């Protein structure tokens, strides 16, 4: 197992290095803003560019980039959006808002998704099941920004229950901030709940019709016992990695929702770093690395969690 984990992580790092190197070269080929145009920040920008080897040949720049940025975590300063500020620091300031919204969304949608899914599976082929399945089909398909518009129009504008945008400021854990986040959580949640419901229902029905469950019943266990102890636990094997991957997925995937509800997160940072002319390359590189790492990491975590939850699955074994 350990050998497999190390192999996977090693492979991931290689892939990551290749991707980020290609990104680096492609970014370096683009024209950046001449330092003379920065006015009072000129000296600072020139200094930082010198440190990152902007005037040296590309290959030397690359070596400096690997040493300073990938190993030393110094990603340079922002040149367009937050002129002169450390890119990594700004990025870290934006992280909490994104994580907060996603954690709230998961807290609200995982239990709901599981409950609906289990209910539909137990009531298979009744009207309750058909109703849930139809609703799931609709909710899974509709894009999250459409929910955002609906929520904004009906709950924020017509009923005036919530503010249009997230409350400004850094007190993330106050009640007012939470209320102002509810529209965003709802918009993200609909799709997540529906996806989870569909998956749970599919997995649970498969387990419920399997033969070992019939055996458990013939042994004399009650229906509740077989469902909770045998069926649910077994169906969790594929469901749990799915929850995990969804959680990781929406850290990087809530770009549009963050944009609509004015959440000062990572998504808008990325969009804005591309919006300036020329783009803010240091932010762009850092965020590209971030999204790549998230994507690669989630793949590994999903694979490994199979083995953790169900010891019968030996990842990477020859058999």
């Amino acid at each position, binding site marked *: 197992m350990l050998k497999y984990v190390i192999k996977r992580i090693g492979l991931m790092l290689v892939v990551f290095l*290749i991707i980020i190197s290609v990104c680096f070269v*492609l970014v370096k080929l683009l024209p950046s803003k001449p330092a003379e145009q920065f006015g009072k920040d000129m000296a600072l920008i020139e200094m930082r560019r010198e440190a990152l080897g902007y005037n040296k040949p590309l290959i030397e720049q690359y070596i400096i980039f690997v040493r300073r940025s990938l190993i030393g975590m110094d990603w340079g300063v922002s040149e367009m959006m937050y002129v002169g500020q450390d890119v990594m620091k700004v990025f870290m300031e934006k992280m909490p808002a994104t994580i907060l919204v996603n954690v709230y969304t998961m807290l609200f949608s995982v239990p709901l998704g599981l409950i609906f899914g289990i209910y539909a599976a137990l009531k298979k082929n009744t009207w309750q099941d058909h109703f849930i399945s139809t609703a799931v089909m609709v909710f899974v*398909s*509709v894009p999250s920004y459409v929910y955002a518009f609906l929520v904004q129009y009906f709950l924020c504008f017509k009923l005036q229950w919530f503010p249009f945008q997230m409350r400004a400021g850094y007190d993330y854990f106050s009640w007012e901030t939470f209320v102002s986040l509810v529209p965003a959580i709802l918009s993200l949640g609909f799709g997540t709940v529906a996806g989870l419901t569909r998956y749970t229902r599919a997995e649970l029905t498969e387990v419920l019709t399997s033969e070992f469950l019939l055996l458990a019943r013939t042994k004399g266990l009650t229906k509740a016992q077989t469902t909770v102890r045998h069926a649910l636990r077994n169906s969790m094997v594929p469901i749990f990695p799915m929850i995990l991957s969804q959680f990781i997925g929406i850290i990087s995937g809530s770009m549009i929702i963050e944009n609509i509800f004015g959440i000062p997160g990572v998504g808008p940072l990325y969009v804005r770093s591309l919006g300036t002319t020329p783009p803010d390359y240091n932010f762009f590189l850092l965020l590209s690395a971030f*999204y790549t790492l998230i994507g690669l990491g989630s793949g590994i975590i999903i694979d490994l969690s199979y083995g953790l939850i169900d010891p019968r699955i030996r990842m990477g074994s020859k058999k």
Partner: protein
Amino acid sequence: MMTKNERNYPKIPKGKFAFVPMEGRQHDKKFETKPIGYFQDVLMRFSRNKASVVAFFIIVFLALYAILVPMFAETNYSLALTDTMYINYSKLPPRSKAMGWLFGDGTKKVTVNENDYNILRAIGIETGLNPIVSSSEPYQDATSGRKQNNYYDIITDEYYRIGMMYLTLTPDEYENIQAWQDANNIQVIYPAITDAKQSDANIWYKANKKGVPTLTKSGDYQPIYRTTTPEDTSYHSLRIAADNDPEKPLAYARITGTSQAKGYVVRVSKYNYFQYRYGFEPSFVMGTNSKGQDIFTRLASAARFSFMLAIFVSSLNLTIGTFYGAIEGYYGGWVDMLMERIADVLGGIPFIVVTSLFQLHLSNKVGVVPSLLFAFVLTGWLGMAYRVRMQFYRFKGQEYVLAARTLGASDARLMFKHIFPNSLGTIITGSILVIPGVIFSESSLTYLGIVNLESSTMTSVGTMLANGRDQLSTNPYIILFPSLFISLLQISFNLFGNGLRDAFNPQLRGAE
């Protein structure tokens, strides 16, 4: 049903036996029913799934809308390339003469104060196109603090509310409009006013600086129409009812410019001018956006672009993915290993980063659309290649492949004649399910502004949504129709794709 007697085999009477004829060949009975092929079977099982069939027809309907409307509809959006007049018809709510119950009748509920109420009333009195459809009794709003002000809850006809505008016409245009007025008996040009500095074309009465009318004691407006000056004698067409003094007829234009290049500054009714210019009454089925562009045709051309892009991406993915997956799966070993690692690297790049890099590098050289297309294709074929590879692994070891190889079939023939047809089902389902994904990604990217497709000849659903967002509370219809379109499209495609997947899955045969 057999009786006990008949099963008593030893006692079958001899007479029941007959000899098989020796001459001629024996045949099985010919099938009376038609044989059912693979695709026929799929079609049969697909059509049993009612929801998918409905979804399929919705997709066909949306596709027809996207293809036909930009071809045939001649509205102000298709004229927009050369015409700047449409800016005057902005934010008109949906109105349909034939299907008002579905789309709307172009009215809107608003609350106005006394002054605004009077300004609106004046439009109706002068032109007969009354913007106030119905009005509540005046009431005083205690919470506003200004006790003196009366408020009205009114339903306005937004198409009449747009009122008047000033236009500077050449003598020819001036003559043309007059001729049209006489022919159709619809008045476009209304009398000029004495106040030459007044920029608000709606004002034809005595008013203060804010345009609030100064009423007489009986509540009437006091017209400030100009009377004819000696140089303007060219007006011969329709006149308003108040223009009944033969001694001092009203002037319908203010003349500017030199005698060589004369210009006529006229007050025209926007509603009637639209009829003169385009030949039909303004009535936009889905309304107009804040630039005055017709949403119905704009959405259709956005949809056409989305469909085209998605189908193009899907077919390119299909081609690349099939070849890549076939080579990987068929040869296996180190070829597979190497190609899988390449796929791993490509699959690790987040789609949004690919798109951004392509936009930064290529959009100036080859254009926005091709660079978007490249971004979609660069990583899009991976899924298809994966599916094809799996199918090849499943089938390449089977005996019939070995038999074909023994008979001397080449690698290419084995791959595409013998193994590939097995994966047809998954490939078709896969390439159908790619389409909603592409449309969704495209709308998200254009919404965020990472890809900018907006130009005079083109638009996209995402841009329409982004433009309508600041109008969400005041004019929700601008955002409603694009949202509705994309939601309907996604739901239908998913239903259709699921139905297709089930139909292509032979394991489900008979289980439904």
